[in-house]
């Protein structure tokens, strides 16, 4: 094999990655071509190490001919590691400013777009239950990976994370003991199934699928950070179209509506936490 300088090798790898993503789209319909390049590259190289494959081209061969290998890549690309009540002040603000709005509705539809393992879905279910609103809510929790959704549906999380989650829960204005919501079993805990009676887990691809309902609340936190600006524009339009008038939209702490085509269609509900309300 030719030995290339690191810079040349890097350039070649970028070309190979573009080809792999093109193949993944044309064979399976999953479109990662407009994902943010730095993190998708990291994840592909990480998957390759796990599969013990040395070059992206060889990996492409496996992904395109082996469904199981593709499914593992898909999971690798869709997992993000969140916490329950991540950014507690976001949930505290949600309690203070959004819950009063939701009380005025007869029924409430909430969409968690890109729910990954479901940490934030269970957090929302707990919050709604404590506010006495859970029974009239339906939470749609969507992601692209079947495997990730299966895990989210299980509601099983490591026991070791509970200290951090409990701390977050308290700071988010939790009203009970956090441990009331789960049962520990060896190194894991399982969250009470009652929390998911009104949760619908389903496959949805923000990149290629359209709007599937009208929602009063849409949360899409730390999902679009994986997209490039072109794709972010598409998803901002999709979310705008899926939100009812005066519906609430929540982003991650380091995301912003600024410089997106929809920034003038929302007003801020809170200056610090990224909660917005559709006003036109």
């Amino acid at each position, binding site marked *: 094999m030719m030995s290339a300088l690191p810079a040349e090798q890097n350039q070649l790898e970028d070309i190979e990655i573009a080809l792999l993503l093109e193949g993944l789209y044309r064979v399976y319909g999953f479109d990662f071509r407009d994902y943010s390049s730095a993190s998708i590259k990291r994840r592909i190289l990480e998957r390759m190490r796990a599969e013990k494959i040395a070059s992206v081209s060889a990996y492409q061969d496996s992904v395109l001919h082996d469904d199981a290998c593709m499914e593992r890549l898909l999971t690798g690309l869709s997992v993000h590691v969140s916490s329950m009540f991540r950014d507690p002040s976001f949930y505290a603000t949600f309690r203070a400013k959004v819950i009063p709005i939701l009380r005025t509705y007869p029924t409430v539809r909430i969409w968690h777009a890109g729910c990954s393992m479901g940490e934030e879905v269970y957090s929302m279910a707990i919050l709604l239950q404590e506010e006495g609103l859970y029974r009239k809510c339906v939470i749609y929790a969507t992601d692209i990976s079947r495997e990730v959704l299966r895990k989210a549906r299980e509601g099983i999380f490591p026991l070791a994370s509970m200290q*951090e989650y409990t701390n977050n829960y308290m700071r988010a204005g939790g009203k009970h003991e956090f441990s009331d919501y789960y049962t520990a079993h060896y190194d894991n805990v399982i969250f009470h199934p009652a929390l998911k009676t009104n949760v619908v887990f389903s496959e949805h691809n923000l990149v290629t699928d359209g709007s599937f309902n009208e929602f009063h609340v849409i949360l899409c936190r730390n999902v679009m950070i994986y997209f490039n600006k072109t794709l972010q524009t598409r998803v901002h339009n999709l979310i705008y179209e899926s939100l009812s008038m005066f519906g609430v939209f929540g982003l991650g*702490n380091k995301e912003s509506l600024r410089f997106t085509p929809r920034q003038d269609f929302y007003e801020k509900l809170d200056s610090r936490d990224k909660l917005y309300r559709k006003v036109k």
Partner: protein
Amino acid sequence: MVGTSYGGLAALQILLPALAKDFPLPVIVVQHRSKDSDNLCEFLGRHSALPLGEPNDKDAITPGRVYLAPRDYHLLIERDGFALSTEAPVGFARPSVNVLFEAAADVYQGHVIGVILTGANTDGARGLAKIKSYGGLCVVEDPASAESRGMPAAAIAATKVDAILPLREIAPYLNRIC
């Protein structure tokens, strides 16, 4: 690019004010920090010669500014700006120095200066080696006088660094060569 961990807060209070007011490059800092560390930015801002802030996702990278990696995200570099990620912590760290340095080397190739300061783990060593392999410049705080020698020593073991300096000489060195 600057990476640091244990003892980093005190070290950054010495490094950042000593940078030239007209420093011609963007300065991007990963300081290992807890998920609850809300006020670090405000605190370090008071000690910096250059304007300091935490980048939002997709913000442009401007010379003469200091960017601090936000808590509980990895900070990555792309051709047109910053990118954030909530991938799993790397070596128990999020933000991770390796993740930043490797992404920076990918984009800027040889045009990166990697600086490793005090820290009690080995994060940054692999990233610094990557910066070096692309022809970038590597500067490490002298482990002998660092508050915690772990990160500097690991970096020196991982790659042939260009300069090993006591903390107080790092900013003047950077001012001179940039």
